[in-house]
Each structure stands twice: as C-alpha cells, then as structure tokens.
C-alpha cells in the first residue's frame, strides 16, 4: 500500500475535527473523500501535508511514518498538496508561481517540469508574465495544479479543486486530473462536489462529522440509496 491513515484524531482547540479516521490509497489510484462542510475533510488533508499536527494516529507513506513532519519536508518525501481556495501567490507572476513551486529542484529537472506543466495548461503559457491575481478562477485553479506538477512527487492531494468554478470548468479540471493520474500520479481528492468526485475516483470514502461512515468502490456508492439521497440530490 502506497499510503495509509490509521485512527487519525485531529482537533483545533476544543473542537475535535477528525475522530478516528482510517483509509488507504494504493499506487496509481484516485481516491476521494466526500462529505459536507465541516466533515473534517480539509483537516485531514492539511494534517497529511504537515500543516497541522495530529493528536494521535499514524500516517504512512511509502512505508514510512510521516505524521507530524513539517510541510516543507513532506514535499521532499514526494507528496504535494493543492490547498483549498487555490492559494496562488497573487503578487507574483504566473511564471514565478511555477518557479517557486520548484524551489528545491536542480536546474535541468526544473526546466523539464516547467515545460511539462505549461504543456498541460497552455492557457497559462501565454499569461506567464501576468500577475497571478489577474487570472480567472479557473485559470487560478489550473495554476495551483500546475504548481503541484512542478513541485512533483508520486502523490497529489487536492482540496476542493471544484470550489467556486462553473460546471464546465469543473469538468475540465477533472479531466486534467484524470490525465495526470493516467500519467502515473496517485491522487487523493477531497470534494463537496460528490457528483464529479464519484465519477472520477476509483474508490470513495464518505465522511460525516469527523468519522468515515461509508466506503467502497465509487461505482457501487453511486448506486447506494443513502449516498444518492445525501450527496447526489436524488
């Protein structure tokens, strides 16, 4: 197993946001965690990425425990997070955002990754020298994913890439994620947009108020009456 979370507990002050969550991701998979606002999805991703310290539980990546390692070191292990709300650096140019994402890289690798990322997002290429905050929401999301491609690693974590985007753009982003996965990257996706997430992911975990209530193959969960009622408006 490439990645495992076992009995993870995380809290903010007195609020216990994540209460004993376990799940796993195999190499080459797309796995999604779906759930409503406040279910603890972002907390889980931020904890994995090293931005938040867990109370207890283990996180294992490539057979090594990574819980509690600071975020910039997690990146070195080969895992990258596309955070909620994109968090692009609006005061930097598009190029500088991508360049900064390759901070640790040697020149030849950096060049290769930059050109790969721009090939994946041709819209960004013509806007390289624009300030990133002049981009539209969809372009900003593409920049956020492009940045993660430059940073590199075997596994990409994405926190609500569909947030605030028109349906057509959501489909475009999800298609790109599908392609990135096909090219070999393992993906862990957190989403409120259950429709799109279920269609993209191989397996799905349903999260409610900090615990996993349901899990299985996405194709099966789509048929599940409870899931349809709660998340697919059906």
């Amino acid at each position: 197993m490439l990645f495992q979370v076992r009995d993870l507990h995380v809290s903010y002050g007195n609020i216990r946001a994540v209460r004993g969550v376990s799940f796993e991701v195999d190499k080459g998979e797309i796995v999604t965690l779906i759930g409503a606002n406040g279910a603890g999805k972002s907390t889980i991703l931020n904890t994995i990425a090293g931005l938040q310290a867990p109370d207890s539980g283990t996180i294992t990546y490539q057979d090594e425990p990574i819980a509690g390692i600071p975020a910039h070191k997690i990146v070195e292990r080969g895992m990258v997070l596309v955070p909620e709300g994109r968090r692009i650096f609006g005061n930097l140019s598009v190029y500088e955002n991508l360049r900064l994402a390759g901070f640790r890289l040697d020149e030849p690798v950096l060049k290769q990754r930059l050109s790969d990322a721009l090939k994946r997002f041709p819209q960004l290429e013509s806007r390289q020298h624009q300030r990133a905050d002049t981009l539209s929401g969809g372009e900003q999301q593409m920049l956020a994913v492009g940045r993660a491609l430059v940073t590199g690693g075997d596994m990409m974590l994405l926190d609500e890439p569909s947030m605030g985007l028109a349906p057509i753009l959501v489909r475009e982003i999800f298609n790109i994620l599908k392609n990135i996965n096909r090219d070999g990257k393992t993906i862990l996706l957190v989403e409120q947009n259950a429709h799109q997430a279920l269609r993209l992911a191989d397996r799905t975990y349903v999260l409610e108020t900090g615990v996993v209530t349901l899990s299985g193959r996405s194709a099966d969960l789509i048929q599940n009456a409870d899931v349809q009622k709660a998340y697919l408006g059906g």
Partner: protein
Amino acid sequence: MDLDTLAQQFLNALQLGSLYALVALGYTMVYGVLLLINFAHGDIFMFGAFIGVFGAFVLGLPFLPTLLLSMIITALLGITIEKVAYKPLRHASRLSAVITALGVGLLLENGMLALTGADPRRYPDNFFAASVTIGDTTLELSVRIVIIAVALILFLCLYYIVQRTKWGMAMRAISYDKFAVPLMGVSQDRIITLTFVLGAGLAAAAGILWGVAFTASLSPYMGLRVGWKAFIAAVVGGIGDIRGAALGGLLLGFVEIFVVALGSPIGISSSYRDLVGFALLLVILVVRPTGLFGVARRQKL
C-alpha cells in the same frame, strides 16, 4: 539660492535620503515577511556603525573591509535577535512581539553604552580617503558621491535578490500568503533568516556610511532618531514594498534638507525641520493611507 548651492543641497539630500532608505528597507522587509515592526532596527543600525569603529581602530582596517566586516557581523546579530527574541513569539500576539522588539532595542543601546561609554565616537581621519588612481592621474572622490553610489549599489543588489531569485520570490510569496509557502517545499524559517540577514546587513552599511558622512556623531543612541525616521519613510513608501522604502527614504531626505535650505532665508528656523517634514509626510498618508507603493490588504479568511 544659486545653482552651485542648489547642486550641493541636492547632493546632501540624496546622501541623507539614501541612508534613510537603507535603514527603511530593513523595516519594510521584516514587516513584509513577519508582519512585525522591528523597533530594534534603528539600534541594529547603531550596532553596525560601532562594529565599524572596532574594525577601523582595533583592527586598523580601511573603509571597504570595515564595511563588509560590519555587514557580516551585524547580519549575525540580526539572525540571533530573530532566533532568540522573535521566533518564540511567532504565534503570540503582535503586541508581545512589538514590546519585545522595543526591549531588544533598549538592550542594544544600553549594552553598547556599558561597553563603550557615552563619549561620541568618530572614525579615524584617514578612514575614508576616497581616491582612484587611473594611470598617472589621481581622482579625488567626493564623500557624498561615494556614499550615494554605495547605497545605490546595495539597493540594486537587494532588488535583484528580491525580484529575480527564488529566495526573493519566496520572500514576496510569504508576504502575500504564508500558509501556502511550505507547500512549495520552502522552509519558512530559512526565508525569515534571510530577511534578517539582508535587513541587518543594509542597516550596518548605513551605519558605517552615516559615520563617514556625519563625523563625530556615533553614539549608542544614534539609532533612535534615524530608526524612527526610517520607519516613517517605510510607512510613507508603503510598508512591505522595497521600492516604497527606497522612495520614502529619499523623499524624507529631500524634505529635511530643503526645508532648511529654503526655509532659513525666509526666517524659518532649521529647528522646524522635523515639524515641516513630518507634516508633509502626514499629508501623504492622509491622501494615500497605504503609502506610495502600498496596496490595501484584503483580509483573507
């Protein structure tokens, strides 16, 4: 005022302004990265000037080696202050950090006073003998021109680092959104360290140049007035923006020199210098509350 006097005053203003600018850069960079107003920065400037005294008298070094030595040692002081005094407070309230900064400033002032005594110091007479020999001709350089040139070179180096290197990109990125910076594989601590190295190094250079420009003026309290003025220059320029700090410093230099130069013939005493200067800057802040280069920060949720 005849043309020659005007040119002289212009040079005076450039000299004073570029010294304010060098100090203002340190305020603005630390604020950009940590949202901390480092009120010890004026005393770091003083410390740099006194390392110059040490280098010139004790080691007998000439101007340029003294300048470099002081920049390096003062940069180490900057790192130490950050690690010992500010880092433990990174998640404390802003007020605690500001009070600590004032405390660090007092420590530096009084520590230097205890170490060197209250008599004003000056650099040796032959400390700054600026002449260039090309072939058979020796060119005497004006002190002011050299000071302005050194300040300009240092600013251009800084500008290059901030605008063109990945380290500078990381500094600017932290000032925009520090949450996302570690996700790029960048250690925030190392960027903060770099910021203090650059800020303290420039302040040290300004300290040495100050001692060269205004002889017999090195006292442990010399950083107070200069520090406040440079801080104001940084705010007027738009705190967090290095172009703003440079411009704010120059502006303050010009205002101070020309209030005296133009005021004394018409009976305005030179003791009104600060009053007129600060009033003008206040007007700028009323018109542009975020400073000349500042942009209003969106409150990020």
